[in-house]
């Protein structure tokens, strides 16, 4: 057990240091930082550049977030009808939830994190697609297998990818919170720091199943680019198919739960129990993906 743990840590460290030096790793790091900052800029710009009054922006944001939450929770109707139902008080829970995010918590941080939650599933595969498939394609895995168990290798690579993703998310969130606190100063540090920590935690949990999905695709697909397109493709295809299929038959909308799309927003719920459940779902989802990957990798001919 000690040997296995030691080897997992060695693989994790090697995976991280390799990411910092390899082309694909650097692309992942740069793109994630750039995309994160671009999304933050998208959220901050209307206020920062004075395009809109703060109160009006808050109202619009509350309405927009309410629509997104309603769609994510598979409420019936198109966005226009959802707005109508929210105004008539029918979707009171969604309205309250949206107001919690923009009125009770630092609004710009909430919006940025919601946007990041939409984009991260597409960025994370960049950090995982070569994790296993890269070594399989170049057969360098044959140098490793006489010295390590397949389980240690897989779990070590998972840990390495996860730690790198978490470090990037942490750095990104720290930069955004610092910018909001120092440059924009719309919210006090007392509000920004706890909410920033909570949002960072939400993103860390959200990243777990997507990193596991990336490792699964990297295990199944022997060609790195195929693994990349598979994991990014699945992340995009699930909501697209779920919403399209739902139009034909309502229950098919539940396909959204094949990935965390169906519950990821709950990580920012005002209700602590809902948040806990969403965290457990994320862990469970990730564990399912990594169990399948482990099974595949153990019986694969390499």
């Amino acid at each position, binding site marked *: 057990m000690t040997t*296995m743990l030691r080897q997992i840590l060695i693989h994790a460290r*090697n995976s991280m240091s390799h990411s910092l030096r390899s082309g694909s790793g650097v692309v992942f790091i740069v793109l994630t930082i750039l995309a994160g900052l671009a999304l933050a800029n998208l959220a901050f710009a209307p206020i920062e550049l004075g395009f809109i009054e703060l109160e009006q922006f808050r109202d619009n944001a509350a309405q927009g977030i309410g629509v997104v939450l309603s769609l994510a929770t598979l409420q019936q109707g198109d966005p226009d009808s959802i707005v109508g139902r929210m105004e008539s008080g029918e979707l009171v829970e969604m309205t309250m939830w949206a107001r919690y995010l923009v009125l009770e918590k630092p609004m710009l941080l909430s919006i940025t994190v919601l946007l990041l939650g939409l984009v991260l599933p597409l960025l994370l595969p960049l950090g995982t697609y070569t994790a296993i498939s890269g070594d399989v394609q*170049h057969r360098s895995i*044959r140098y490793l297998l*006489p*010295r390590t168990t397949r389980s240690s290798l897989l779990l070590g690579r998972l840990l390495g990818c996860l730690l790198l993703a978490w470090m990037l998310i942490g750095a990104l969130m720290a930069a955004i919170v610092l910018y909001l606190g120092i440059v924009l100063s719309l919210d006090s540090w007392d509000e920004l720091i706890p909410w920033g920590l909570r949002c960072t935690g939400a993103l860390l949990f959200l990243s777990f199943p997507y990193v596991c999905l990336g490792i699964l695709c990297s295990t199944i697909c022997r060609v790195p680019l195929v693994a990349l397109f598979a994991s990014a493709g699945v992340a995009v295809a699930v909501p697209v198919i779920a919403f399209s299929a739902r139009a034909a038959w309502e229950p098919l909308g539940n396909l959204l739960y094949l990935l965390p799309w169906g519950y990821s927003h709950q990580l920012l719920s005002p209700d602590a129990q809902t948040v806990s459940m969403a965290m457990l779902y994320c862990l469970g989802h990730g564990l399912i993906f990594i169990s399948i990957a482990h099974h595949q990798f153990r019986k694969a*001919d390499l």
Partner: protein
Amino acid sequence: MNSSGHGLTIRGLAHRFGEKVVLDGIEWSLPNTGVVGLVGPNGAGKTTLFSIIAGFLHLQQGSLEILDAPRPGHPRLMGRLAVMPQDAIFARDVTILDQLMFLRSLDGVSGRRARIDVEEAMQRVDLEDELHRGAAVLSHGMGKRLGVAQAILGTPELVLLDEPTAGLDPANARQVRGIICELGKSALVIVSSHNLLELQEIIERVAIISEGKMVASGSVEEVTRRDRRFELRLGVKITSDQEDALRSCEKVRHISCIDDRLTVDLDASSEGGVDEALTELLQAMLKEGIPPRELREGASLEEAYLRLTGDSQQDPADR
């Protein structure tokens, strides 16, 4: 050492890729130390056998005991089995030192000790100057030697080398052969190669594999007993009548003559073995008035290989 006292014991091994049977009924027992050759035509199943022993491919049928582990890929084998695969490549953008230090750290050795081991291994293959460079700058031959270096890192007990000298210049090939012989004193080294002359110099045992079946295995002496080739340099050019007279000797299986060089394959399967066959040949030569100026043992392994694998049409003496 496994329960049967051997370094490697294979029983009833069979493997297929889809419908194609690539290994069938392989039985093989090898001691704990020594250099063993694994030869066979392309596609005979050598690399598949290596891959199964190394744990790259899953065991489909049969059993393998490797050292004291009951199956390939067993955690007990970690760090004790080393492989030089034929087609694996090192990362191009990471220094060789880092890559070998990483491999050594998986064996549980790190820091200064690991660095010493890595430098030692690289010195043995004459690549110590490349330690701080990436694998991208290495030539094919240097890449091969790097593969050998990673296989001899530490103290492996079973080493599998797939075509270790292919593409090496004569000096480096000789160096690698020296390393293999040295390794064979303390470990079981299995070498796959198509260069039978070279292989014959370093191995004590050999297995010949053809179309997925092991057609012969044992000591080189046992396997080549029937097929002993001798090359003789003559003082004169022999006539066709003299050649026919030599060919009519009971123990001469095949004879060919180019200029003053005579190549003779002897049948050494009788009780008197090679000595009796050679005596008969030399007596016949002296009787015909053809005194040999030089006599040396030739590629008898190659002859056995060609006979056992049915590739005799490739016999260079016939060409």
